[in-house]
């Protein structure tokens, strides 16, 4: 049996019908997450066995229709038409039957055997809905299985039905629904016309689907089949147009909805008295004219706080562990086998530091994915977009762009990942391109260092100005991109406001885990590679005494003239900026090394033993949990004293003036986002194109702004 080719089961359904929860519940950890080729839409697959039958489950993007107007719809129908799965499982929201049946009816046109998972059935029952599933089976000619993905009921039943239908697929061709005499006449006329003139076309596509798409004048089908719109015999069309007017697409939508509402009226009995539903009551408050925005602000504050405060102790812990005990062990092992010094340095400062710089992002990605998935699954995300759309739309973005941009202030990387909540690919890319202008947490140490030296009287104001500068430039760049790259069709804001639902915890965790893993593997590789590369730049040629003679120093010296007009054309500043591409806070560390090389660290008199190390790992992990809990609960904590960096400060005072330091800070704010952001964009969009554009435009912008600051300041007599 297992030798058999796996049964390909495509899962299709409306957004918010609980499709991904259902798939998570069925396939669990066997899910493999990737992207559909060439697009940013997620593709989930799972291979497993039911009753000895191998099944490959393919999750299709949620969509409302099979028309060619959104990426999700196009992927879904291309897959169904070209890959011809053995079976479709159509996930239908039982509480929203009519609109869901509209897609069901279109899926039936494909002639692929189908099973309906009548999902969210528990909620429909609780509302007092009575659904005659037998009658539905009869009318549609497919099996209908009530399910509840969140409660995990009906799922075994569903998979058993899949196996039993698969045993005899040809006997389960779905029924052909009658679209009314006028349309059917045209369809049969068109079919005989095709059989005479374009016979190969009929071989290529499901018959009824092809005929309907040709009738609708579906641009993509016409193009793919390489036929022109006038393929339709005119006399057939004229008859239809005389009876129903020019709008064939509208006629077809009307016809399909007519069938959907007829069927839903027949099989669904709703209680007479409709109680005021929970969703309605929540929305009265959450979308209230006066309370809507304050509630949104509180929700966003919570999201930000939970994401970053909860994760940062764990990031710190991971950082301390990789740089502490782990490095010590590796040094000990390498020393034990007599490896040369440079190998120890490469492994420690290149490889392990690289791994560490990937790991520190893991907690924040996990935390962000968890809360974003919760916001989406609960239904609040759509409300947040509803509340914010006016403001975001005025700068050319979508209401849902707000959250990724907000997260960008904590760290740009989770911000990039959060753009996946946007449906429209243009909105998604545009938002991701602007996120690097949000001043992230890693840039703060640079500001703090410089502001402390050059603006001791009003440090807060200067940092505030930098944040505002980033936001204003985001508005400006958004406008420019909108007018150049993203010209053309206006993105729409036609969005369902689904009922509030409590997402299942397992589904949340699974989703979070998938994303975290995706980040580790996909983005991790690039980050790691760049870290190792920078190590080589710092340490080659072998045995460099002075940083200025390393490849990094030489590279810094080479590009330094570029920074002459903006006020900091020194090899030191340029080198620090180069290392800042790993993470912007590294600028501070590199400056420390270059300007004020620490005296050779006095060898620590006592290396901790393995036992002590292990104890430290456990104890500090406990400490991380304690810190996470207490930050969230606002318990007082002991502040760690800041390290003294007086040598660096003195050196910087000799190199920078208040004006050039401000130009430098503005440059650090704006110049190319760190490599992690680039890797995240690469992982999310499947191409380097957008990451490359982000790197290029931001660096040019940074230079121009720094130039304006420096030259403008000099012109105003603020001193050079």
């Amino acid at each position, binding site marked *: 049996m297992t030798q058999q080719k796996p049964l390909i089961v495509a899962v299709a359904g409306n957004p918010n019908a609980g499709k991904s929860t259902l798939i998570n519940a069925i396939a669990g950890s066997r899910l493999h997450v990737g992207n559909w080729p060439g697009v940013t839409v997620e593709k989930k697959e799972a291979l497993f066995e039911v009753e000895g039958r191998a099944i490959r489950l393919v999750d299709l993007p949620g969509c*409302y*229709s099979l*028309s060619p*107007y*959104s990426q999700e719809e196009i992927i879904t129908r291309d897959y169904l038409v070209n890959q011809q799965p053995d079976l479709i499982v159509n996930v239908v929201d039982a509480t*929203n039957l*009519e*609109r869901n049946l*509209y897609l069901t009816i279109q899926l039936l046109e494909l002639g692929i055997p189908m099973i309906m998972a009548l999902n969210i059935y528990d909620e429909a029952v609780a509302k007092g809905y009575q659904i005659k599933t037998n009658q539905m089976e009869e009318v549609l000619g497919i099996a209908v299985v009530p399910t509840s993905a969140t409660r995990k009921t009906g799922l075994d039943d569903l998979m058993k039905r899949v196996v039993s239908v698969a045993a005899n697929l040809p006997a389960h061709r779905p029924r052909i629904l009658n679209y009314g005499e006028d349309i059917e006449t045209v369809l049969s006329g068109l079919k005989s016309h095709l059989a005479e003139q374009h016979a190969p076309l009929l071989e290529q596509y499901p018959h009824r689907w092809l005929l309907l798409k040709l009738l609708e004048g579906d641009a993509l089908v016409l193009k793919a089949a390489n036929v022109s719109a006038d393929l339709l015999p005119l006399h057939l069309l004229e008859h239809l147009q005389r009876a129903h007017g020019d*709008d064939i*697409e*509208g006629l077809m*939508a*009307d016809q399909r*909805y007519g069938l959907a*509402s007829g069927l839903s009226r027949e099989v669904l009995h709703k209680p007479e008295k409709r109680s005021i539903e929970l969703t309605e009551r929540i*929305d009265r408050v959450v*979308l*209230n*004219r*006066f309370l*809507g*925005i304050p509630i949104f602000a509180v929700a966003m504050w919570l999201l930000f706080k939970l994401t970053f405060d909860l994760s940062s102790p764990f990031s710190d812990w991971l950082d301390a562990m990789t740089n502490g005990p782990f490095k010590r062990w590796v040094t000990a092992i390498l020393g034990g086998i007599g490896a040369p010094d440079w190998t120890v340095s490469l492994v420690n400062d290149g490889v392990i530091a690289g791994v560490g710089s990937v790991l520190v992002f893991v907690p924040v990605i996990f935390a962000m994915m968890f809360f974003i998935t919760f916001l989406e699954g609960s239904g609040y995300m*759509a409300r947040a*977009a*509803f*509340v914010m*759309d*006016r*403001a975001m*739309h005025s700068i050319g973005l979508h*209401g849902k762009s707000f959250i990724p941009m907000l997260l960008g202030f904590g760290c740009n990387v989770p911000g990039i990942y959060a753009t996946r909540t946007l449906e429209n690919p243009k909105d998604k890319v545009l938002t991701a391109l602007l996120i690097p202008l949000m001043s992230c947490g890693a840039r703060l140490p640079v500001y703090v260092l410089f502001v402390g030296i050059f603006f001791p009287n009003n440090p807060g104001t200067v940092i505030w100005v930098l944040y505002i500068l980033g936001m204003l430039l985001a508005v400006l760049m958004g406008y420019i991109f909108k007018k150049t790259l993203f010209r053309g*069709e206006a993105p*729409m*804001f*036609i*969005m*369902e*406001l*689904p009922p509030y639902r409590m997402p299942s915890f397992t589904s949340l965790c699974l989703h979070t885990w998938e994303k975290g893993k995706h980040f580790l593997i996909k983005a991790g590789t690039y980050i790691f590679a760049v870290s190792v590369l920078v190590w080589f730049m710092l340490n080659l040629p072998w045995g460099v005494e002075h940083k200025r003679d390393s490849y990094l120093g030489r590279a810094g010296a080479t590009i330094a003239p570029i920074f002459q007009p903006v006020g900091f054309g020194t090899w030191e500043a340029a080198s620090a900026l180069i290392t800042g591409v790993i993470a912007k806070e590294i600028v501070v560390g590199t400056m420390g090394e270059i300007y004020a090389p620490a005296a050779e660290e006095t060898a620590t008199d006592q290396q901790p033993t393995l036992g002590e190390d292990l104890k430290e790992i456990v104890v500090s992990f406990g400490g991380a949990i304690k810190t996470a809990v207490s930050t969230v609960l606002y318990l007082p904590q002991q502040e760690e004293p800041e390290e003294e960096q007086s040598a660096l400060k003195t050196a910087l005072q000799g190199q920078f003036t208040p004006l050039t330091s401000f130009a430098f800070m503005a440059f650090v704010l704006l110049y190319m986002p760190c490599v992690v952001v680039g890797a995240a964009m690469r992982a999310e969009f499947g191409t380097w194109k957008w990451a490359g554009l982000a790197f290029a435009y931001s660096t040019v912008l940074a230079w121009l702004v720094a130039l304006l600051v420096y030259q403008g300041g000099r012109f105003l007599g603020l001193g050079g």
Partner: protein
Amino acid sequence: MNLSNLKPGQQGTILKLDSSIGPIRRRLMDMGVIPGELIKVEKIAPMGDPIEVSVKGYNLSLRKGEAKGIEVQEVVA
């Protein structure tokens, strides 16, 4: 009269979807916004745009600019 003229709580029958709104038109029809259907304005967002409507038993939000393309006739409940 178009959908953007209705106030929260008011409802109307959809008469026509303006062909000038382009692909949005098909999208709206796919979402159940088709002539003959009853549509009710539920809420207006705190900043005055977009609006929330109910149609075919579920809730949908759209911008006022999009609502302008939907011709309706008010139905007094």
